[in-house]
């Protein structure tokens, strides 16, 4: 069982705000739900938004947008990556 941390909730709230998912709430996003494609339905433009979010909020700089796809697979993956790499 993955543990729901503050980081998970924080990420969901940031995603909803940053990507203008107006009709969504934090509880609508599952931790292991795919963020792209058939899951939440995010696209390549959202991936670029999330790359800036990583840099701005957690001090992680990604130079290759292709890497984003793996990191942003789900909230769980994102949270793990942030925990391992954050500088702020």
């Amino acid at each position: 069982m993955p543990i729901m941390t503050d980081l998970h909730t924080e990420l969901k709230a940031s995603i909803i705000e940053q990507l203008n998912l107006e009709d969504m709430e934090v509880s609508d996003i599952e931790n292991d739900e795919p963020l792209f494609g058939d899951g939440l339905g995010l696209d390549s433009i959202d991936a670029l938004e999330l790359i800036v979010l990583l840099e701005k909020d957690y001090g992680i700089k990604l130079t290759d947008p292709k890497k984003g796809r793996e990191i942003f697979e789900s909230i769980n993956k994102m949270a793990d990556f942030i925990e391992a790499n954050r500088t702020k």
Partner: protein
Amino acid sequence: MYINGMASIAAQTEEDLFAGNLKSFQQNIFPATIVNYKEYIKPMMLRRMSKAIKMGLVAAKQALNEAGVEVPDSIIVGTGEGCKQDTEKFLENILDENESFLTPTAFIQSTHNTVGGQIALDLKCTGYNMTYTQNSVSFESALIDAKLQFAEDPDTRCVLVGGVDELAKTSTPFYNLDGQLKAGEINTAEILQSESGGTITSEGAAFFLLSEIRTQDSFAEISDCMIYREISEEKLEEEISWFLKKNDLKPEDLDAVILGNNGDKRFDHYYHQLQDTIFKNTLQLGYKNWVGDYNTVTAYSCWLGAEILKRNEIPQQLKLNNLEVKQPKSILIYNQYLGKNHSLTLLRSL
């Protein structure tokens, strides 16, 4: 070119226009009426759209619906100021963050052809796609392009043409600073009698589904359109007569003229001159005191003219003189902004 479907979003509703219930505003900047965009646009698409894109896409879809067309052969959009909301959003980010931490969404939605591109994307329309951005003749440039399309390509059956412009929170109020907007207390209903410079502004979208061949859905015709970057008052009368003549009309044959009077004392004399001379005995209509002046407000006036021809009914609140017309058949639209970018558009009933 025949109109088979059309739709308009502006500061006034169609119902209020023909019921004589047009509202006045106490500000020099006022928004378009509220539309339920969710009815027409998927939420995942809607979330990134500024008002111009939403208004444009919905008006386009409504026009297509009315004409019973799913995908047009071409999409031609006029927008004088394009996607200002996203432009200022991205620009403010650049200035605030000193060129760092920038996300691309506002940038990619800021280009002037975003509305045309988003309509194509939504309809999966791979046909001809064009965007004109020439101040107050942006919509007319699009109309002229549509006319050429029909003339040159027998495969072009129907063309979607529209005009759209939006307000933005910082860039629109800049027009208070360079004299484009009226200062002081304002009652928009009364601005056409104003003795001061400047006008009032708003936003809107009007789209038309046009065909070269008359169909069972056709209800009016856009016969001709001309644009002039500059024209002198002396030359204007002559040019209008020539324009009408090439369409087998004389000024006195017109049933109504829709004029772009916007209450700007510095430039309304272009209209007043015509009102006192060649159009003295023609029904004169003005509309900008109700929906504001913006670069593509002439798309609204085109919708208005076509609606009058379709209904055989004149909205009484728009009348600038007291003539009566029972069965309007031909309507001329004349417009200019700040004395430049003049246009003539001729509408006829069927």
